[in-house]
């Protein structure tokens, strides 16, 4: 069962990738969809068995990977509640995206390859969530990065897509730098990278310090912060987030699967998985909280001002990831995973819905050229409303439950950073609801702003695209209410796959916070939607005026706080400048003193070499060889005789 869940996407990928050319697109679509369906079913069975059945976690060994001295790494599938929850989320969303893609990409000439890549991604993600050790986790981590690179740059004739793909990979590598260092540090400290052994040793060595960069530092804090750097890269947290909006260059199903529902949540998973380490590193938790809270806020501010429908959703993804991280930071791991799950459903829904809109309007992504199409594409319209209401945290939609518990947990932490996160989260909740409303009103309501031809041709998507949307819509509607009690209620759902020290149990404390703390997020959600209604439906001229009044602020948000420009000036330009300088140094300094100087005096040999052109090469070769052997023998003989 475990093998089916993890490896059927790999088999599907291999078959579709190697033989796709010969067997055709249809075949690729069938084989990949079959693979992912199998994986999803197997994952659900495992979920029932392990998470619901309350089975002990276990590990399925597959093979040895690396063995070098006492550094031993195995391929293994770790099964516990945390991994099966992730497996279900990944495979279900992935299955929806697979089916949707069959329709969405139906006119693409490389659609077979596209399906293969989706399966490759799913496999890598499964390896990541079932990893039994840090190195296999790293394998999955980089594997999803590769799939993301291939899929962002899928339309590889577009320069912008290629640039975005490379950027995504390289920025992620910056995060991976931290992750790799974290793995090295863990091995250095504990002599193992196997998770269970690490967890056991971490608790015993909570006070260990070690020398890092010449400073005597608290060991677990260093490890956790390094790992968090990796998480920041993959999950687009503030500072390493610049690749995510650009990643929207990829086809929309990719944005839904990779850049919203699954891959970007890998960082959240990592921190939750490593909770037995983080729990003993309070400073690391504080950093996680603050970074998460700031990300939630900053991303929301940018989301307010963007016009590309996919970028708005991308920034909202980043903002929601911020929520998950500050939940982790206040030790509310269960709440973070809960939000991860509900978010996966409603965000995949929003993206695929957006894709449906884009599809209907012939690849139009700018919301300024949309509007008034609600009855042209009624099913998409309704589903987008469901997704947006879930995102905004309107009662009884999925996001309402998960966002509330996250915010309550932050408040219940009773630390300065918990409070900080709470208020940042509240502010972001208001903005989230506002831009969600803005997106809906600009896209579907008001007067059509596209040309008549496009408007007339706007059409609802075929059933193969709508069915996955409906499944996700069901998730966005009910997954919150259905799993609330299980994930963050009073059950022992996680069975030790997540460790929370008794003092840090904010999820339990979150059930006893004052009523206003509980109600505020909901109020903000409704307020944001109402505001958006007034600004984009009632008084259409208002946004324009607001932009003028708050010009500097708007510029800051609209230009994404100038992160790209600053990075470009600081790192990218300088790297190239150094490259050129060093290269020149190579040519002038190193060579000038060394070989060229010598060569200048021996240029006349060049004439000799010229004769090789006409002579018999092998003769010269033999002469040279005999010369060398003779020389060696002679010197040798001399020295030895001399020594005797």
């Amino acid at each position, binding site marked *: 069962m475990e093998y089916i869940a993890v490896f059927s996407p790999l088999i599907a990928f291999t078959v579709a990738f190697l033989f796709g050319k010969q067997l055709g697109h249809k075949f690729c679509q069938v084989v990949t969809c079959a693979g992912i369906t199998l994986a999803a079913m197997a994952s659900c069975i495992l979920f029932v068995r392990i998470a619901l059945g309350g089975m002990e976690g276990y590990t399925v060994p597959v093979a040895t990977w690396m063995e070098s001295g006492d550094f031993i790494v195995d391929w293994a599938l770790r099964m516990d509640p945390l991994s099966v929850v992730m497996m279900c989320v990944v495979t279900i969303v992935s299955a929806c995206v697979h089916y949707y893609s069959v329709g969405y990409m139906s006119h693409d000439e490389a659609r077979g390859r596209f399906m293969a890549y989706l399966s490759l991604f799913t496999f890598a993600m499964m390896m990541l969530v079932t990893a039994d050790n840090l*190195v296999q986790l790293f394998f999955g981590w980089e594997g999803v990065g590769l799939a993301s690179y291939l899929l962002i740059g899928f339309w590889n004739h577009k320069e912008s897509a290629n640039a975005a793909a490379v950027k995504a990979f*390289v920025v992620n*590598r910056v995060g991976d730098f931290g992750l790799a260092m974290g793995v*090295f540090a863990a091995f250095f400290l504990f002599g193992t990278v196997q998770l269970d052994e690490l967890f056991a040793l971490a608790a015993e060595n909570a006070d260990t310090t070690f020398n890092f960069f010449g400073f005597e530092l608290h060991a677990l804090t260093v490890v956790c912060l390094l790992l968090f750097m990796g998480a920041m890269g993959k999950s687009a947290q503030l500072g390493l987030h610049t690749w995510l909006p650009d990643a929207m260059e990829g086809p929309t199903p990719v944005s839904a699967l990779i850049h919203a529902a699954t891959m970007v949540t890998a960082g959240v998973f990592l921190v939750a998985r490593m909770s037995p380490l983080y729990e003993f590193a309070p400073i690391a938790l504080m950093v996680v909280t603050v970074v998460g809270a700031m990300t939630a806020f900053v991303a929301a501010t940018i989301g307010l001002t963007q016009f590309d429908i996919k970028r708005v959703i991308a920034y909202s993804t980043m903002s929601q990831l911020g929520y998950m991280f500050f939940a982790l930071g206040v030790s509310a791991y269960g709440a973070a995973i809960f939000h991860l799950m509900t978010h996966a459903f409603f965000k995949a829904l929003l993206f695929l819905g957006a894709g449906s809109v884009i599809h209907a309007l012939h690849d139009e992504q700018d919301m300024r050229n949309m509007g008034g199409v609600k009855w042209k594409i009624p099913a998409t319209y309704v589903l987008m409303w469901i997704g947006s209401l879930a995102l905004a945290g309107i009662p009884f939609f999925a996001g309402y439950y998960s966002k509330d518990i996250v915010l309550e947990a932050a408040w219940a932490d009773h630390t300065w950073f918990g409070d900080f996160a709470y208020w940042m989260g509240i502010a972001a909740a208001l903005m989230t609801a506002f831009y969600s409303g803005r997106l809906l009103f600009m896209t579907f309501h008001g007067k059509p702003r596209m040309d008549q031809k496009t408007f007339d041709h706007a059409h609802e998507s075929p059933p193969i695209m709508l069915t996955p949307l409906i499944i996700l819509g069901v998730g966005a509607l009910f997954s919150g209410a259905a799993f609330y009690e299980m994930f963050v209620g009073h059950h022992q759902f996680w069975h030790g796959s997540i460790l929370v020290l008794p003092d840090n149990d904010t999820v339990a404390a979150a059930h006893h916070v004052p009523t206003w703390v509980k109600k505020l997020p909901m109020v903000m959600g409704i307020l944001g939607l109402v505001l958006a209604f007034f600004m984009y439906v009632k008084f259409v001229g208002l946004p324009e005026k607001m932009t003028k009044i708050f010009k500097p602020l708007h510029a800051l948000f609209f230009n994404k706080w100038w992160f790209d420009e600053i990075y470009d000036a600081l790192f990218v330009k300088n790297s190239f400048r150094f490259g050129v300088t060093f290269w020149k140094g190579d040519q002038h300094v190193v060579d000038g003193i060394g*070989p060229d100087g010598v060569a200048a005096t021996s240029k006349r040999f060049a004439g000799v070499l010229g004769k*090789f052109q006409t002579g018999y090469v092998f003769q010269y070769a033999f002469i040279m060889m005999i010369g060398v052997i003779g020389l060696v023998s002679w010197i040798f003989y001399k020295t030895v005789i001399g*020594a005797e």
Partner: protein
Amino acid sequence: MIEFPVLSLLTFLPLIGALLILTIRGSEEIVARNSRWAALWVSGTTFFVSLYLLFQFDGTSAEFQFVETIDWFPALGLSYTMGIDGISLFFVLLSAFLTPICVLASWTAVKTRVKEYMIAFLILETFMIGTFCALDTILFYIFFEGVLIPMFLIIGIWGGKRRVYSAYKFFLYTLLGSVLMLVALLTLYVQTGTTSIPELMEDPVGRDLQIWLWLAFFASFAVKMPMWPVHTWLPDAHVEAPTAGSVILAGVLLKMGGYGFLRFSLPMFPEASEFFAPMVFWLSVVAIIYTSLVALVQEDMKKLIAYSSVAHMGYVTLGIFTATVQGIEGAIFQMISHGLISGALFLCVGVVYDRLHTREIARYGGLVKNMPKYATVFMIMVLGSVGLPGTSGFVGEFLTLLAAFQVDTIIAAFATTGIILGAAYMLMLYRKVVFGEQVNKDAAAMSDLNPREFWYFVPLVVLVLWLGVQPGMVMDKVAPSVDKLITQYESALPLHAEGTLAEEELEE
């Protein structure tokens, strides 16, 4: 009583083949065709013989195996001794594996003096295999230096426009290093009275002498690796060499430096190695960062890959001088893997060079449209070079960095930035060559891999992926020899009681 001398057979089979080719007579066309086939048969047979080693090698033993000894200069105690252990085994295999591929890669690319070209390649193979098998210092030296000659000719005769300059640069650089090594070898002999490598490994000389000898050997091996700042011959040599020459240069010749460190510097001069290790670390770190940045701004495909080789060799030297199990095994693995990956990358350049006769990156673009198979192979090799887990490139890089971290966190941090820069320059190269619009008409009209090209890439691709998932195939056989090397190294150090930091701290 004497076993079948399989190592000598392996070493001299190509030489015999070369002599055979020498006898080929006839019209130019027939000579060319026959020499190609003869070279392919000979190198192919050599490869199959080398497989015998792989299967017969006792992976649990750290001793030298397949040893054969013949008195050579009995008066001086000089003998012809061959033998391999886990450290050298895979270098022998790599040499034997890459040569037939090189012959295939030169099939149509080399049009002039085909006979001489094939002879040069087979002689080169003899020297390469001999270097890794020799267990006598003088024998080693002859093979080690002998390599220079055919390589010099291959670059100087079948190379590009500036071939004469490059060939001389290559020759001068490497020869200067070697002269010092020769002096050191002789001194060693005078001091100990033996030229036997195993004996010298058992019994290191005094500390002061070690320092000097270490430096002399270092001069030679550092040039071969090449380490920063004596790397400048490499880009030139690569750029001017014919494709197959680059493959061998990157695939095998660079590894001779690393092999030398493992066979000579570490076991024979342990105290000096420990003394100089910090210097080597910093040179490695500089190499990784410096050459990665230089690679970032290259406009010539071959130069870019050449600079990336220097960076990758930086991990090797870093790993070797950590003198830890992970570091050394990682370094060996990295060398094998780099031999496959960079060899394949140069072949990738060769494929398009054969069609368009330019290496300028800007002349290509959008190849994925007209050359999908090529794009796939190239992508896999780029990923290997980037060190993506699941390819062989990851294992070596990861282990050496892991080892570096155990020794010095600052060094490890600097060296690890290489994984960021490596991704940047390789993906930029790939993006410009394979993706994008098809701006150049002639590049867009190139044909995809032909069957010959396709089939020489297949074993490379399979190995890169297979070793990435199952590195144990190599590591298990290497491990006993490395363990022995480390044990000897540590017992030779005065302060060998020092445990790892981790243990100390956990005990506290």
